[in-house]
């Protein structure tokens, strides 16, 4: 049982921290225009990247190097989960099979959830979404299959190469920009060819944003489902 003294000490500390933070936040009034860099991005996003969704353009185009770092962190975390929970013999130890309704329903809905995730990351430059939510949706589809079936496992032979190839593809797309005489992660589809300038706001536009977001979506989806897989399989003792 947590002692009363510890609780009250914690609450007093929190009150002090809270007062201090609120004092700071009171100088930042809510809902006022204080954009500096964001204004530049918003004014030039259509001309410079060809995307309609400014958030996507910032994530992939203006700050693509940062996103590459984030994907690397995701990869390292996923590898860490796999390494920490590695055992010589692993198997799923779930006992309760899902009911008939659940199994049939999840089999029926699985392709639709995959299709929705793909839709999210292909249309990332037009509508809200992108590779990160799309990949999470795909991982949720595999999570549903894990819940419904006792002995389901993701196709490891397909997923592990896909994960690596998606990460390599991201770097490769960036290196093409370096090769044709500009900087790393240069938007070569949009800047050099102006490919898709005629149909701005439709699917075939946005430079390399759909390409990179497809790769990110595949990577996030495979890694999150890999995390789910390694958390759910346990060691079997003979």
């Amino acid at each position, binding site marked *: 049982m947590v002692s009363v003294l510890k609780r009250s000490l914690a609450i007093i500390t929190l009150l002090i921290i809270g007062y201090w933070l609120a004092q700071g936040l009171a100088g930042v009034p809510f809902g006022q225009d204080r954009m500096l860099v964001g204004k530049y991005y918003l004014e030039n996003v259509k001309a410079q990247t060809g995307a309609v969704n400014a958030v996507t353009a910032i994530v992939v185009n203006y700050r693509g190097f940062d996103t590459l770092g984030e994907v690397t962190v995701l990869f390292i975390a996923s590898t860490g989960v796999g390494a920490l929970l590695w055992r010589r013999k692993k198997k799923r130890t779930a006992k309760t099979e*899902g*009911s008939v*309704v*659940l199994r049939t*329903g*999840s089999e*029926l*809905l699985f392709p639709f959830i995959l299709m929705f995730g793909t839709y999210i990351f292909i249309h990332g430059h037009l509508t809200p979404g992108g590779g990160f939510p799309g990949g999470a949706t795909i991982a949720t589809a595999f999570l549903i299959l894990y*819940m419904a079936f006792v002995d389901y496992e993701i196709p490891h032979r397909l997923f592990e190469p896909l994960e690596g190839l998606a990460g390599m593809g991201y770097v490769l797309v960036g290196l093409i920009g370096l090769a044709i005489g500009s900087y790393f992660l240069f938007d070569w589809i949009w800047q050099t060819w102006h490919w898709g300038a005629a149909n701005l706001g439709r699917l075939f536009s946005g430079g390399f944003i759909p390409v990179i977001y497809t790769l990110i979506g595949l990577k996030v989806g495979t890694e999150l489902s890999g995390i789910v897989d390694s958390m759910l399989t346990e060691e079997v003792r003979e």
Partner: protein
Amino acid sequence: MNVLSATGEALVLIGTFFYFLSALGLIRMPDVYNRMQTSTKSATLGSLGVIIGTGLWAVGMGHSVAWIVQTVVVATFILLTNPISAHALIRGAYRSGIPLWNGSVVDKYGEHLEAKAEAAENEKDEGDGE
């Protein structure tokens, strides 16, 4: 204002009424299973009414036909997913040992589980005998 948008408004009203019924059942019902049943069943119906009603309303107000197509797709998926999730939740609740209400008379799932356990027992006994 024409027939389509009037129908849409009526559907939205009916859906809202079912939402109200489901919230009422959530308060009034005695145990987990009854509450889950009333909330899921009438909330599904209410969502269908509200969503399709919105589509009809928008078409009646002169927007494009894409509204009704999109709302029908959304309603189909709600009709597919909502009962399945409620079923899985209730099954989990039963298996984790939450008791039924005192006044319940039918427990088909419990009977099914008992019959299954008995069958397994008999099979084991026969296997031992041989």
